[in-house]
């Protein structure tokens, strides 16, 4: 495929016979359709040709023909809201691939009449437009965006989105206030500590202490309000949790410091506010991860088009076509889907046959032939002719919706580390309270000394304040995730690091995970002609093809530097093959059945189990090409390393039995299960999960339920967005060697955490009795607390120097 056969605007191949061009001085620019020419002229007219130079596309674009949909004002009304004198519209854009798309949309749409402002969010692909009703209509704006080559979908802000966004913002504000005030407090404390050791005027000391009390108050009562409320709720329900421990620790430190301020002792306002700040920081990370996950579900649902073309029986011969929102279409209705469009609903094919690309839905990399009576899933793309279908299910019961529900469900069920922390605190909190109470009572009743009773009881609470205990896990996790991300491994949360270290079994998906997910020519078996000549003919035949096997042939032709002129007259038969007129003879290429149906005698060759394309010129059989989706080069060494680490590997694939078993044998995988549907994969994982922790490694949307079901879901880079975001562990490089590294790092992290916890507990065990008996003066207990925290931090930092296992 050479440069001139690609569209200037969209870089998709130009179909045979299309001759749309534009003269620009000497150069003739060729386009694949009028839409692209139109888009090019708009961009040029606005003086923004720089777009073509600066764009860098890494994601696949929108399928051709996706823009057939018309937009009406009524349908868009649901995503328009009023804001003062403006109207506001939210859209979800499909086809944004890089930052220059954002730039282009903002420039062009922003310059239209009636548009007050436009902002495209690159992270969520959402666009918000403020416009003036009297100068622009929603439909005109949406159509201008569609003309640029992006597919806008109405996006109505659901309540839980708005709420999550508001929460994230208040959290950010609370944290910033806490961080700023804590830093101020540190300054005062430094002065106070220096004063303790070197002497300080009592006046200055008191002034600094009073200032500390004033500055710490908003940190605890405003910034700490979320967990004070949480503690109050826990108290009312009678279930002690981590919130309660933090609240008691913070309140005790603050209360005691106020008391100390009154009687002239040492104050601990800084440690109280520091705890609040650190806990808030943890919450921000958590909410960021959650926001990303809900974004994934949204995008999954937006895969299927939201409008369907419903056929209505009329008296005449031609049925009328009505454009209807897909959620209003009932089961049993008839719909029509044009070439290049996505199927809006799960439906049954009524007549004829077509080829569909269901890669985004099922992960199957090859187009699938569907004939009358077959079921086609929403979200798949029609590669063949226009077809009529009967709707099987309403939109909310479609395969994609169920998949989104599965992912959402699995995500919401996950918080084991939180539960574990709550279980520990359920014991720890009452124990500490009891001990403090016992200490107070002992000193008050047995010794008859009320001041000492207060001092010792509070001393126990301050010493028990879970500083080192609280730092033990998060610091190790923080350092480990940082070290991992530098090596291309992203753990989505601390619980994932923990879970990774406990993994016993690894379940792999085949296509795109163990293999490269792209067919390549394995062998060329020419009969009667030269191998190179056969390849060249193949290149001629397939030069306009978007079929993966056709593209594999064109790649090979290009790699060997052969010339394959694009032919005239090109006839593709869905799922079967291609036929052209070449030098007077019909040149055919396709499946075995395609050639046999055309009356060509195919010589029987062994090894028919591989993917193959056969060729014939006229009646003469020319030979065939064999294809293979080869395993990644590093797959076998990675798997060998994983086995040495004591992990059991299994292969779960939707592919045919012989293909799956061959790959398993090549890589030495003991357990293979083939021909599984996404649901079956998830079920199998659920069953295996009972006998030991399991990690699923995959990509593609069909893996999303399995990824979510497994204890740890791991996505390789290059997979679909949905798979990446519904997984817990993501590799930024498509390299299987990351996997043993990630597991080794997580194991190391857990051993560091155990060391930290051991130290923190023994510190508490030693310090608490001392505090209870009045042996530990507050300033020394503070010193002990600080040194224990430093020790824990230092231990965690050792993870930075993690060596790769090889």
């Amino acid at each position: 495929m050479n440069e001139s056969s690609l569209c200037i605007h969209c870089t998709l191949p130009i179909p045979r016979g299309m001759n749309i061009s534009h003269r620009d001085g000497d150069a003739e620019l060729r386009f694949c359709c009028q839409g692209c020419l139109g888009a090019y002229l708009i961009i040029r007219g606005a003086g923004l040709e720089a777009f073509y130079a600066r764009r860098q596309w890494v994601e696949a674009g929108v399928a051709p023909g996706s823009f057939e949909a018309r937009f009406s004002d009524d349908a868009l009304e649901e995503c328009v809201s009023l804001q003062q004198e403006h109207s506001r519209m939210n859209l979800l854009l499909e086809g944004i691939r890089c930052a220059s798309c954002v730039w282009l949309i903002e420039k062009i749409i922003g310059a239209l009449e009636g548009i007050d402002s436009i902002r495209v969010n690159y992270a969520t692909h959402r666009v918000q437009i403020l416009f003036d009703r009297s100068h622009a209509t929603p439909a005109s704006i949406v159509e201008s965006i569609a003309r640029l080559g992006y597919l806008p979908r109405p996006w109505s802000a659901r309540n839980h989105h708005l709420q999550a966004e508001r929460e994230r913002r208040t959290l950010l504000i609370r944290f910033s206030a806490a961080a700023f005030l804590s830093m101020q407090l540190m300054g005062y404390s430094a002065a106070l500590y220096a004063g303790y050791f070197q002497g300080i005027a009592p006046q200055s000391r008191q002034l600094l202490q009073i200032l500390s009390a004033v500055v710490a108050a908003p940190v605890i009562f405003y910034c700490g309000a979320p967990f004070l409320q949480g503690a109050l709720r826990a108290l009312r329900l009678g279930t002690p949790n981590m919130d309660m421990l933090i609240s008691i620790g913070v309140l005790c430190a603050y209360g005691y410091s106020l008391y100390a301020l009154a009687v002239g002792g040492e104050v601990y306002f800084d440690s109280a506010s520091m705890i609040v700040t650190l806990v808030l920081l943890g919450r921000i990370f958590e909410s960021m991860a959650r926001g990303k996950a809900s974004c994934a579900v949204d995008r999954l649902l937006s895969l299927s088009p939201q409008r369907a073309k419903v056929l209505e029986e009329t008296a005449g011969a031609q049925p009328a076509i009505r454009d209807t929102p897909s959620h209003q279409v009932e089961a049993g209705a008839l719909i029509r889907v044009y070439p290049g469009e996505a199927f809006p609903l799960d439906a049954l094919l009524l007549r004829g046959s077509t080829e569909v690309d269901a890669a985004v839905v099922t992960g199957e990399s090859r187009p699938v032939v569907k004939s009358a009576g077959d079921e086609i899933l929403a979200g798949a793309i029609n590669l063949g002719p226009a077809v009529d279908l009967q709707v099987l299910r309403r939109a909310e019961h479609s395969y994609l919706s169920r998949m989104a529900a599965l992912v959402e469900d699995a995500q919401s069920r996950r918080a084991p580390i939180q539960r574990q922390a709550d279980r520990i605190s359920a014991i720890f909190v009452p124990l500490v309270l009891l001990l403090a109470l016992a200490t107070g009572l002992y000193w008050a009743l047995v010794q008859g000394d009320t001041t000492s009773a207060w001092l010792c009881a509070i001393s126990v609470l301050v010493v028990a304040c879970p500083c080192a205990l609280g730092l033990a896990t998060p610091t190790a996790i923080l350092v480990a995730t940082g070290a991992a991300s530098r090596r291309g491994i992203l753990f989505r949360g601390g619980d994932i690091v923990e879970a990774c270290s406990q993994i016993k079994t690894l379940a792999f998906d085949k296509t795109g995970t163990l293999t490269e997910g792209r067919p390549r020519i394995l062998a060329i078996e020419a009969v009667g002609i030269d191998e190179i000549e056969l390849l060249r003919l193949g290149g001629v035949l397939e030069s306009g093809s978007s079929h993966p096997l056709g593209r594999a042939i064109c790649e090979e032709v290009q790699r060997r530097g052969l010339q394959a002129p694009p032919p005239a007259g090109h006839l593709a038969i869905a799922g079967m093959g291609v036929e052209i007129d070449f030098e007077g003879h019909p040149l055919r290429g396709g499946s075995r059945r395609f050639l046999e149906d055309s009356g060509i005698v195919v010589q029987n060759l062994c090894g028919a189990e591989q993917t193959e394309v056969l060729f014939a010129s006229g009646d003469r059989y020319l030979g065939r090409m064999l294809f293979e989706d080869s395993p990644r080069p590093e797959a076998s060494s990675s798997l060998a390393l994983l086995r040495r680490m004591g992990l059991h590997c299994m292969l779960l694939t939707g592919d045919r039995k012989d293909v799956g078993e061959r790959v398993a044998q090549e890589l030495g995988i003991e357990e293979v299960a083939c021909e599984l549907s996404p649901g079956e994969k998830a079920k199998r994982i659920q069953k295996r999960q009972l006998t030991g922790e399991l990690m699923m490694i995959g990509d593609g949307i069909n893996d999303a339920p399995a990824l979510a079901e497994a204890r740890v879901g791991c996505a390789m880079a290059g997979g679909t967005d949905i798979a990446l975001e519904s997984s817990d562990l993501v590799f930024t490089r498509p390299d299987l060697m990351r996997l043993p590294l990630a597991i080794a790092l997580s194991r190391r992290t857990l051993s560091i955490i155990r060391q930290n916890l051991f130290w923190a507990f023994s510190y508490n065990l030693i310090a608490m009795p001392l505090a209870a008996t009045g042996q530990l003066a507050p300033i020394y207990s503070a010193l002990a607390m600080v040194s224990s925290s430093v020790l824990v931090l230092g231990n965690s930092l050792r993870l930075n120097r993690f060596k790769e296992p090889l």
Partner: protein
Amino acid sequence: MLQSTVALILLSLFLGCAAWLLFVWAVRRGQFDDPEGPKYRMLEDDDLPRTPKPPEDSA
């Protein structure tokens, strides 16, 4: 001595508060909603002076 300490502490608090209020204002305007885009946005040279204003509230 004491007076100057008090004055300096209050001054630092005041300055810090001003910075914090600026941050709060930025958060409310949605400046922290898209952590991905701006790093690319800065690379774009604006030869056309008609960049639209970002919306007041992108909730």
